[in-house]
Each structure stands twice: as C-alpha cells, then as structure tokens.
C-alpha cells in the first residue's frame, strides 16, 4: 500500500521481485544497489541462508527524486524462490504496489517459471489482489546462457495481460533498470488515478 506522508512530503511504494529459485531476483537488487549513488539508497538487507539463498527476503530502499514536491521512495523486496518458503512469500506480498516477475530463461526452468507464476497469482488472490489489476512487469533473465528458450515461447507461456517484457542479464545489469523503471512508472501512474 502506498504510504503518503504530507508532513515529510514523502511517497513510499513497495515493489516485490517474484520468481522461481535461482532466477536472479537477488542479483537484480544487488545490481541496482551497486549502481546507485550512496545518497539515493539505504542498506541492502539480505535475510539469507549460509549458502546465500534467500531465506525470508532481501530489501533495499531507493530514492528516485521528487514528484510535485514529494520525495519518491521505492522499497524493493525479493521473495525466497524455493517452493517450500511459500508462507514467507505470502507475507512479503502484503501491501505490494507493484510486482516484477523474474523468469529464468533456461529451457530446464520453464516448468519452474510456470509453477512460480501460478503461485504468484494464487498468493496475490489470497491477499486480495488481482494480477490483471496491479502494476506488473515480466523480466526474462539469463539471456546470455546457451540453453535458453526462445523469447516467443517464453512469452506465450508467461505473458498474462500484455505487460511490459524485458530481456535481461542481471549479472551484468542488462535490462535491470529498464525493468525497474517500467514497474515504478506503472506504480506512479496508478497513484494518479487515486
């Protein structure tokens, strides 16, 4: 839920990166963190296991500038991708303003993508949201790997509502900011309608 503070003239929005295990959600956040000026970001918090798999969530606040005299701050979260952390995923979706689905382009991960997307739709519904109504962007990650599914095939399986789709290589930053901009823009456009 967008939080607007008239006293401190701030708009705070929550964006969640969703997707199957090891698809590159944390890598997206890490790249944004590494590429952002220190004054525009807070700490990158990672609640991870000893093997660096996300246990609960990753979080970083990002300040983009001012709109109509209000500072806009985006709170970026990732969810744990592994199937058995579903309870945590549900919690992190609470109060979400926009979602990025990070798909793993490797052929062998197609089923995991479909399962995770289905899980997203279901968990959004549990929280009272409808994927077709909320700001949403699809990122096709790991396009640099040799065994990737063609874009057309991924799109036909994963596109839900004509959402913006971005090819990405999160490890080198390709497509990372384009994805973030697209979802942030949708969130702010949504605010205009309120």
């Amino acid at each position, binding site marked *: 839920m967008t939080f607007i503070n008239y006293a401190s003239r701030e708009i705070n929005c929550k964006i969640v990166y969703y997707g199957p295990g090891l698809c590159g959600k944390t890598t997206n956040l890490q790249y944004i963190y590494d590429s952002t000026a220190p004054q525009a970001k807070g700490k990158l918090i990672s609640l991870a296991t000893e093997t660096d798999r996300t246990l609960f969530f990753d*979080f970083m606040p990002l300040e983009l*500038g001012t709109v*109509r005299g209000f500072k806009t701050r985006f709170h970026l979260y990732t969810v744990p991708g592994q199937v058995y952390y579903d309870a945590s995923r549900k919690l992190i979706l*609470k109060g979400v303003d926009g979602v990025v689905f990070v798909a793993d382009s490797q052929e062998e991960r197609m089923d995991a993508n479909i399962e995770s997307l289905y899980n997203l739709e279901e968990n959004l519904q549990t929280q009272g949201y409808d994927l077709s109504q909320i700001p949403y962007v699809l990122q096709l990650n790991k396009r640099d790997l040799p065994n990737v599914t063609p874009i057309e095939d991924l799109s036909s399986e994963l596109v839900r509502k004509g959402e913006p789709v971005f090819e990405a290589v999160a490890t080198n930053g390709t497509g990372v900011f384009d994805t973030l901009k697209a979802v942030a823009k949708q969130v702010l456009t949504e605010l205009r309608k309120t």
Partner: protein
Amino acid sequence: MAQSPFIIQEQQFQRIKIVLARLCVECAARVVFLVDRDGQTIAFHGDIGDMDTTSFSSLAAGNVAATSSMAKLIGEDVFPAVVHEGERESIFISVIGRSLLVVVFDERSTLGLVKLRTKRASFEVASILDEAVAESAAFSMSKNSIFAEITDEDIDSLFS
C-alpha cells in the same frame, strides 16, 4: 487492484509525534518508532544515532509478520506484542491494527514499565491512525488530490 494509499496529514503526523515523544520520556526509552505493517516508518522520536531507520522498520514489520503467522499455526489469532531482550538494548513491539509501536530501550528502563506506558500510548495512536485511514479513503476519492495532476513528464523526469 492495488489498495488505496494510506495518507498521513501534517496535523495527524504532529499529534503522533507528540504521543511518541511523551512515550519515549515516560518509559525512558532510547527511541520509539511507529511503523506501518508493510514496513514503512510513519514517525519516530528519540536517539537514533547512526541507526538505519528504514531497514529497522522493514525488519520490524517482517518480524511481526513472521511471528503472527507462527501464532496462527499454533492456534493463536495474533501475538499482540513481541519482545527481544538483549544484553544492553531490548526491543518491545506492540501491534496496533495495521501499525506497530516499537520501543527500543536499555538498562535505564524495564520491560514492565515499557509495557505499561505503551498500552496507553497505543490507544491514542490507534485513534489518530483510524482517523487517518478514514480520511485517506475520502481523500483518495476526491478529485482535488495533487496526485491527479502528476504528468507523464513528471514521472519520466525521475528516470532521466
């Protein structure tokens, strides 16, 4: 569809700050926060030193979200309070509807005192927040919202 925004007006913010300032003194706390359950800091009062308040609020909300889910798994509806006791610093979190009152205190105070004083402050904060929620809904429906005037250029300028 995403939920309507939660809007705090200047006058409500100042009233919350007064309650937090009094609570901070009454329970000899280091710092007191009011945090949205989605993890956003609404207000705070006290000595934050070099604490990263944004991360702190996000983690406090994550903590309460996790313990609330654990409560349900054992047949409790909710844990209305969460306590973390450290060697020097401790944290008391009181759940007020969709917000959290978080008190950080040290050996100058006691858990009993913090619990007692927080209870009264919780009622006052709840009443201000109820008012803010009701006004948020009305404000969202009004066509006078300055956000209706946001242009595509305003949004694009954030990314240039």
